């Protein structure tokens, strides 16, 4: 037997989670149901979050956007494509239309897969994850959220409430490698955000380390060397060096989806190309 718990308010959801910390939250179910169908998981209870309206909302909260954990990829693309272009670009690469209709950003974080496509753009944008429990609310920078493959700082009584992220203040890019042209888990992925106002650069690497991660040296290098003062064509050597630094920041392994060497190689190409495109966009 498996209990199916169906809170209809956020407060109820938190109370249920406090009461039944072993209950597995289910949002779109596109990860949870796969695990159940493959008999990899047999939880005593499922905690259905789809009836909690707060989770499916997004809005402005001062300077930042607060995107509810239950917002689907389709809505990220359609409603937030202008404000969060990097996240929307990543969302377009997720699964198939059916998966994008059901799958949520909160579910992506909840699974904490190193290959989750939502993660690199959140890293590049410097997003913060809002976690909640009956004990209260805490905000964790997304870079600190992941602790290992499919592991995060989420406590057993906690739920992911939302992601807090500033709207893009410059060009954003996301690119992903897969061995087929759609419906594929990333072999490697890369997200980039340029902040011309602050003269800084954000990065996010997917599928090439035990967790999604930034490439801090590449960020610093680009921030220091991009010709912010006199925007013009990008020096190809600069783009290439940026690519090398992104690649060096990865810690990939060989697995069924690709080799470590290919992951490093492809990251250097993606980083070089996306920086070039982002810079062109900035100069337009």
């Amino acid at each position, binding site marked *: 037997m498996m209990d199916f718990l169906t809170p209809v308010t956020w407060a109820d959801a938190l109370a249920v989670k406090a009461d039944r910390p072993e209950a597995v939250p289910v949002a779109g179910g596109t990860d949870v149901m796969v695990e159940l169908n*493959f008999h990899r998981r047999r939880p005593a209870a499922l905690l259905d979050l789809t009836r909690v309206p707060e989770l499916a909302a997004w809005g402005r909260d001062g300077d930042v956007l607060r995107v509810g954990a239950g917002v689907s990829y389709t809505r990220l693309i359609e409603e937030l494509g202008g404000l969060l272009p990097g996240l929307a670009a990543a969302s377009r690469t997720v699964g198939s239309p059916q998966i994008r209709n059901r799958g949520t950003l909160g579910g992506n974080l909840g699974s904490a897969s190193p290959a989750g496509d939502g993660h690199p753009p959140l890293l590049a944008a410097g997003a913060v994850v809002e976690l909640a429990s009956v004990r209260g609310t805490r905000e964790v920078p997304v870079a600190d959220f992941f602790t290992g493959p499919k592991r995060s700082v989420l406590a057993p009584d906690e739920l992911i409430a939302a992601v807090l992220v500033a709207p893009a203040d410059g060009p954003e890019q996301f690119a992903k490698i897969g*061995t*087929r*042209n759609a419906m594929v888990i990333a072999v490697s992925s890369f997200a980039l955000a340029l902040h011309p106002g602050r003269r800084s650069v954000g990065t996010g690497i997917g599928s090439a380390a035990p967790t999604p991660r930034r490439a801090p040296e590449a960020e610093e290098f680009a921030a220091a060397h991009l010709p912010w003062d006199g925007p013009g064509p990008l020096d190809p050597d600069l783009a290439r060096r940026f690519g090398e630094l992104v690649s060096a920041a990865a810690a990939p392994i060989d697995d069924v989806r690709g080799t470590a060497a290919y992951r490093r190689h492809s990251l250097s190409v993606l980083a070089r190309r996306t920086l070039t495109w982002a810079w062109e966009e900035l100069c337009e």
Partner: protein
Amino acid sequence: MTTIPFTEPLGTAGSCAFSVAGTTENAQDIESLAGAAPAGPARIADRVRRSGQVAQVRPADATRPTAQVRVGARPTGLDVRVGGGVGSSPQRPDGRLKVSGEFAFSSDLWADDMLWGATLRSPYPRAKLTGLDLTAAVALPGVYAVLTAQDVPGRRVYGLEHADQPVLAGTEIRYQGEPIAIVAADHPETARRAASLIKADYEVLAPVTDPDAALLPGSDRVHADRPNLLRHVPIRKGDPAATAPVVVTGEYQVGMQDQAFLGPESGLAVPAEDGGVDLYIATQWLHVDQQQVAACLGLPQEKVRLTLAGVGGAFGAREDLSMQVHACLLALRTGRPVKMVYGREESFFGHVHRHPARLRYEHGADRDGRLVYVKASIVLDGGAYASSTGAVVANAATLGIGPYDVPNVVMDAYGLYTNNPPCGAMRGFGAVQACFAYESQMDRLAAAVGLDPVEVRLRNALTTGDRMPTGQLVEGPAPVAELLRLVRERPQAPAGADFPPGGTANTTRGEGVVRGVGYAIGIKNVCFSEGFDDFATARVRLELVGGRPAALVHTAAAEVGQGLVTVQAQIVRTELGVEQVTIAPADTSVGSAGSSSASRQTYMTGGAVRAACLALRARLAARLTALGRAPSTSDNDKKGPFLSAEEWVGALEAGALEETVEWRHRPTHALDPETGQGDAHVQYAFAAHRATVDVDVELGLVKVVEIATAQDVGKAVNPQAVAGQIQGGTAQGLGLALMEEIQVVDGMVRNPSFTDYLLPTIMDMPPMRLDVLELADPHSPYGLRGVGEPPTISSTPAVVAAIRAATGAALTRVPVRPEHIVGA
């Protein structure tokens, strides 16, 4: 005056072709009556909800064009007097149900008091099973039976060619996933839990996994009582010491492809009052299942009755038994119906796969690119059990130099046992592996002599009257050169593409993207070979229903999605002029139809249905003669109408007419074990492909932009189904070229799911340009040639050749991975 055509309306004169762009051009949107509740024969227990196998098809509008004719005229003698006959594309009776999700597949079978079966499988590829403790499993509430090898009452092994595969493993475990014990419980979850509660003790052994090493004399044996070499087929033609001024060599590898049908292994076994069992099952060959199941159960065949359940794809993977014996054992033990359905992951362990292969070739040619000799050795990894490895080896050997005329051939193909997953039948069956190698070699030869890849093929193209390496004469049309020219002459794919390599993943804006074009052609045998007694049985019954003639066709042929049910009705309409045709459920109460494999079922069961119809025509004529209304037998017969409504009543008033016919193709012969000489095959089929690809040469990502193909089908019995087979087969070949591989390391499958066993999506399959030739084979029904396999064979090397053209990379292994292209 009434005329019935008594002369054989088989037409072989003339040649014609049609051309199809896309799949929809031929769609004949006619109403199907199949939505009506499926009926079943009385024998079927009414508690069993059956799948929608019985269907009636209303004929198509005969006035509609079925295809665009490119050359020549249609073969004569096939005037269809009622719509929906041979050469048209009536809607499939199961089409609407399948599209709307209402079709009952074998996994949807249900009996009210049924139990669920589950299987315990070995986690190790090679081990000794030293102990099995069933206590906890048996004690679990809801469990009705837990059975092991000791509980198999009859023969404990089964197999298509050699009975070497245990129903349940005894002490020897030979592959990961080998079944060890089975459970029946009142809930699938309970059954699975019980299986996991069985305590199995193993002595884990180092698996034999390298096929080359397994051939060495000192290798461990996979089966203690026999060598690892399962079959060696040598072929010797001409001078084995021939030399040539131009020599190209190559070593190639083909990864393990999976059939990846969507409907997992499943079925329902219902114990019968006579001590026997009724099995509803998705399979490719009911009678060969019946023989094996009965032997293992220790029952006479008539007590093991099989009915085809809805088949969710096959592609060869349902030729071997999976859960058939297990479900019957549990049903007989518990006295309750038992249903078994594999999950997706289990399915990867539940059926055989395509043989991985290592192929070493040496081609010798003169400076004009004319082949002087081919020397080749092909090693096919059969995995733990024989399955159909022997026949796969024979195909690889006999078809292994491709559709080329070569005077001197030294070919050796080997199939062997390892502790890798068992391999057996899959679409293309040995011809696929060889084609990747010989076509790669033809491109190397073209480069070596400075010729265009098509030109070098044309100079060596096999044609009617040539002899195969086996010495067999190539009879009937062999349009190898014509097919190559057709794909070459198609306009080049337009520049640009809907989206770049990488799809929507934003990996390039044109950086690194290079276009390449590649060609390939392949050859396949149709029907069973090497002297096998290959036959099909059909029963056709004519009677009056509501005062009008109706036909009932009963065969044991498996509709596996290819559209055989449609074709059977088409043949009846053409031969008898009866509009209303019902296809009875396929079961073992009628004689064997042989397998739905080897591209043979339209040829064989189609041939049997046609023969039964011809016999019925004679009976009809006799009745009419007795009534004093003898039909004419003049030459005009074929032009005349069939019976009038009144005459039908006259002929059938006295009672139904029924004919059962066992039909055979021309006999084939064994291969000489030393020289490989012999007329082993009954028919050859050919297809050519031209692939156009865009490759991101820096990232190694590929987008196939367009595929042009040309195939000779002899006669397009159902043009839309032909187009479907060509498109689907090509997609399966594209999958092998680019992504489909079961990755096996140390005997362990690393990707048993559709998350990581990648199949082409709609974003990967390009638009196709089809040329379909209809060059009648003088020996086959309607002149048809098997259609299902050829498209799969040459599409793989064509795609790889196109990637080579774009990148210059050697690419000697499929699937090609991005790593291979960029060298990372």
